């Protein structure tokens, strides 16, 4: 158990170092990104020189680069993200609104995709070679290689625009009619949640379709590996029932890579969420990021990038911890 604890500590330290480095990298990347806010400020014809100076001071543009860098590092590491130029709100408030939405969307989609992947992958690997196997693999691969936003647009066209089954955009809309009542501005919680789910459903379906293929294939490959292992023979020879052999022995072991990949893909789904959120106008972190990038809203770009990176790191970290927990062999190493 000591080995496990040490492993956890080392892994945690590594994650922290990675986080600090990424935070620093973001600063320099944005420093590369021209025009910078100071230039924007200087170009503004409405401002008198004294006002420009006041603002430059206020935002610290006139400090030496290194000083700015360290102030930035300190702010970011203490989650003090400043105020959005565009939304004129503290960035933290924006993130508090946005992060749960993104987690809801991608968490939901990833969980569904992995549940499907787990069961379908297990079954098609067990009954490999059949029609089910082949068609699943082919369909899966096609979705796997599809641009998510394109599928999103097609789904919007079909299910939202033509069939009116889902709303076209947004995370929540007080003007919707749910269960015969207009949602309104301060709806009861139940109606609110229904509306949120209704808006989340379509992007979630698209995300699930895109990613279930990967999980099915991963589970299938992993299962095929495990099925070649001798302990499966042992399990069969022991006279276990088929379902026990498949789920207790084969799928349980094949699950290991899937669990790791689940957490990691959750992390990367959030990073890649820019696309899905853009196409569905879903008010999450990804959309916030891409809009802020276009608007040169630096505090938001920094904060969203770092939050996304942080989520990736945290999920990676969780993945490793879970893996170590699930596979007793890793604990020793």
């Amino acid at each position, binding site marked *: 158990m000591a080995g496990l604890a040490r492993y956890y500590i080392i892994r945690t330290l*590594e994650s922290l170092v*990675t986080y600090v480095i*990424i935070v620093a*990298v*973001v600063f320099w*990347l944005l420093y*590369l990104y021209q025009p910078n806010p100071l230039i924007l*400020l200087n170009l*503004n*014809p*409405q*401002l008198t020189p004294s*006002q420009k100076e006041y*603002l430059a001071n*206020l935002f610290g543009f006139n400090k030496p680069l290194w000083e700015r860098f360290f102030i930035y590092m300190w702010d970011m590491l203490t989650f003090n993200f400043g105020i959005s130029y*565009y*939304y*004129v709100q503290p960035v933290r408030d924006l993130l508090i609104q946005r992060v749960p939405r993104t987690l809801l969307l991608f968490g939901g989609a990833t969980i569904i995709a992995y549940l499907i992947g787990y069961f379908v992958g297990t079954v098609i690997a067990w009954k490999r070679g059949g029609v089910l196997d082949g068609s699943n693999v082919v369909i899966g*691969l*096609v979705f*796997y*290689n*599809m*641009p998510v936003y*394109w*599928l999103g*647009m*097609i789904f*919007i*066209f079909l299910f939202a625009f033509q069939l009116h089954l889902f709303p*076209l*955009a*947004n995370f929540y809309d007080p*003007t919707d*009619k749910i269960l015969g009542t207009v949602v309104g*501005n301060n709806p009861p919680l139940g109606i609110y949640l229904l509306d949120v789910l209704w808006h989340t459903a379509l992007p979630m379906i698209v995300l699930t379709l895109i990613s279930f293929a990967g999980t099915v294939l991963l589970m299938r490959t992993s299962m*095929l590996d495990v099925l*070649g292992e001798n302990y499966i023979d042992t399990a069969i020879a022991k006279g276990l029932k088929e379902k026990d052999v498949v789920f207790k022995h084969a799928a349980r072991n094949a699950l290991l890579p899937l669990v790791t990949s689940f957490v990691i893909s959750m*992390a*990367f789904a959030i*990073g*890649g969420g*820019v*696309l899905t959120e*853009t*196409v569905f*106008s879903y*008010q999450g972190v990804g*959309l916030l*990021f891409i*809009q802020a*990038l*276009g*608007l*040169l809203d630096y505090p938001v*770009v920094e904060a*969203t*990038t770092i939050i996304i*990176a942080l989520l990736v790191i945290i999920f*990676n970290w969780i993945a490793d911890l879970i893996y170590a927990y699930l596979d007793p062999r890793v604990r020793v190493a």
Partner: protein
Amino acid sequence: MAQSKKWKESRRAFRRSLKNGWQTYKRSKIGLVGLGIIIMFVVMAVFAPFITPYTPYYTAPSVDIIRGDIYNITLQNSASWIYAPVGIMNYVTAPGANINLTSVLIYNDIGQVQIFPVGYNYTSQKILKIYLKSPTNYSIPKGITSLYETGTYMASFMNANTFIANSSRNFYILDSNLKVYRNFSLPFTIQEKSIFYNNPFIMPSVGQYSLISFSHGNETILYIFYNRQLNYFGMPQPIHKIPLAKLYINTSERVINSPLIYLNPNDVSNGYLNTSQIIIPTNNSLVSYGFNIKMDPGYEALGFNVPQVVSEPYVKWIVNYTDDHGQSYLPLSITYGYDWGDSPGIQSTVVVGTNTNEIIGYSRADGKMVYDKYFVVSNPSLKDYKLQALYPTNGGIIFAYATLGDRSLVALINPSKGTVQSNGTFYNVLEGALNSIPTYDVGSSRYITSTTAGDVYLLQPNMVINQTFSIIGGMKTPINGLGNILSYTAQMGYYYGTITNSGQLYMQETIGTNIAPLPPGKYPSENTYILGTDAYGRDIWTWLVYGSRAELVVGIVAALSSVLLGTFLGLISGFYGGWVDSLIMRITDIFLSLPGLVIMLILAASLGPNIWNIIFVIAILSWSGITRIIRAQVLSLKTRAFIDAARISGASKYRLMMVHIFPNVLPLTFLYMSFGVSGAIITEASLAFLGMGDPHAVTWGMMLQYLWTTGHVLDAPWWLLPPGITITLLSLAFYLVGRAFDEVINPRLRRR
């Protein structure tokens, strides 16, 4: 001789191993399919000019794509809609600026409002559709006689418009959901009112405040709202909901006309906005009151509530109603002869139209008269027309309107001379009385107005009638210039609308609508577009074919670079071990935990949209996984006995690495290259879709990007489907080749 034999020998062995590999590969059906698709696209790329009818930048001629566009929507409860429709606009002034007409609002005095969203999506730059189904119904206070949309602010497609409405005694500020959040009761019944709000797009320097004044008898109330659209970074910010100040002005005489409000945010000194004025026409004289507003730039930039002080109004100047001939008159209409260049140093004028058919200008600053001319005298043929009103227009020109019986005269007045332009073309005569304020359409450079005869006129700047429309069923309300659809990528358009007598909401674009994207088919220009065109009239099939070039180049070059880099680092890391290994592995770990797409977007934005930059960005962020795999492979190869055997034979480190280990990781490199191409194609398309694509490149990603930004997702399946299908196919093809190849080099062990 020996050399050639040796060469032949190794070539034979190489050929044999290739043949063996092919034999194994051939067994994989999916591998063959993948290879087939790749070959198809390579053929497309190579022979692109021969299989496409046009070049990628050929655009369909206008005969194919320009059409008029009329929206005609039947309204429920048609009798109650008695006011002209109001357009709700969306101003975005950040990069990619546009002004969009997002919805059309109709209201009545029994407290009903309906909003019809237009288009289908807020990214749309032109109206595709006015939604008929379930228009949103709102309630407003009853008795509203006018309702304005006063400049808008659009935060991430969420409406944050502010409306100002008034009934006879009350005055309301409404939020974007038309909920009253400020309610002002006036001590009198409104007789005259004037409103000043700024369109930040057209007048960026004054798009800050909303001012509204109401007059009755000798009282005038002026409300000032901080309505700042832009902060100092050029970014929009929300409207402040609380009025800054309410100014009471008690004139000694009765107010007889709408006051004229002027706010001059350019004249800033000592933290004050100076030279703001309200000019009130009374039955005796024109009185100008000045007031100043205190500003705090720091707080403003942050967009917090601005603690501002508005000074008490003070009389700046008074003029009595006598012209330079000593004749007295009453003002019919007053306006400004201001223009874009208006600034503190330039004395723009207050222009007054009189009941004696005169137009008189006064200096804004001190009321000194600068010109006076008889409107009719300057053009004898017009002398019987009775001057009715003056309107400010673009470029400092004044639009004058006069009537004679059931005919109207429209003319442009030069404010510095007060005359209708002498060449005789700057006026025209219309049927019926003018019933709407002439609006200037930036897109077509025409004025739009309508008359009580039920005609809509499109007038050229020289007042030549360009087009006349009769609205079917007749206009119940005057037409209203609803708004622009401007965009830096797409064409401009200006819509106007009215409610017809038969209860329909009628809208039309002044220049006719560009109807591209064109569906597949043969067109009047004799052109055939196999897969139709995009919104710019470019042939989809051509783009699809030429796109394969860029995709193959991006995919292969990006994957090759990342794989080479990854292999090289993995080789070094695995082979040398020690601190080199630790260093490379730490860097790899960091790259592995970067949120790839997000960093790619920032990097691509920093480097600029260029195809080679995109290749670089993709390559630099996708080598890390390969490094890991190659390193693991090298580590496992290092323990293999044949490496020991080579070391015992005396092979140098370099030789071990390059001759013994490298050829053994090469298949793996090739495998990941294949997957890498697949990934790079999707990534390039994603970057392009998110607006980081190379605008000069012909790629499938750019096709989808144009589709998205021009907003044809829902009406141009011939444009939506092909690029997605090709991206999927090509990516899938490389992926399949990779999988098939995987089976060649890592045959899964069959059970016993």
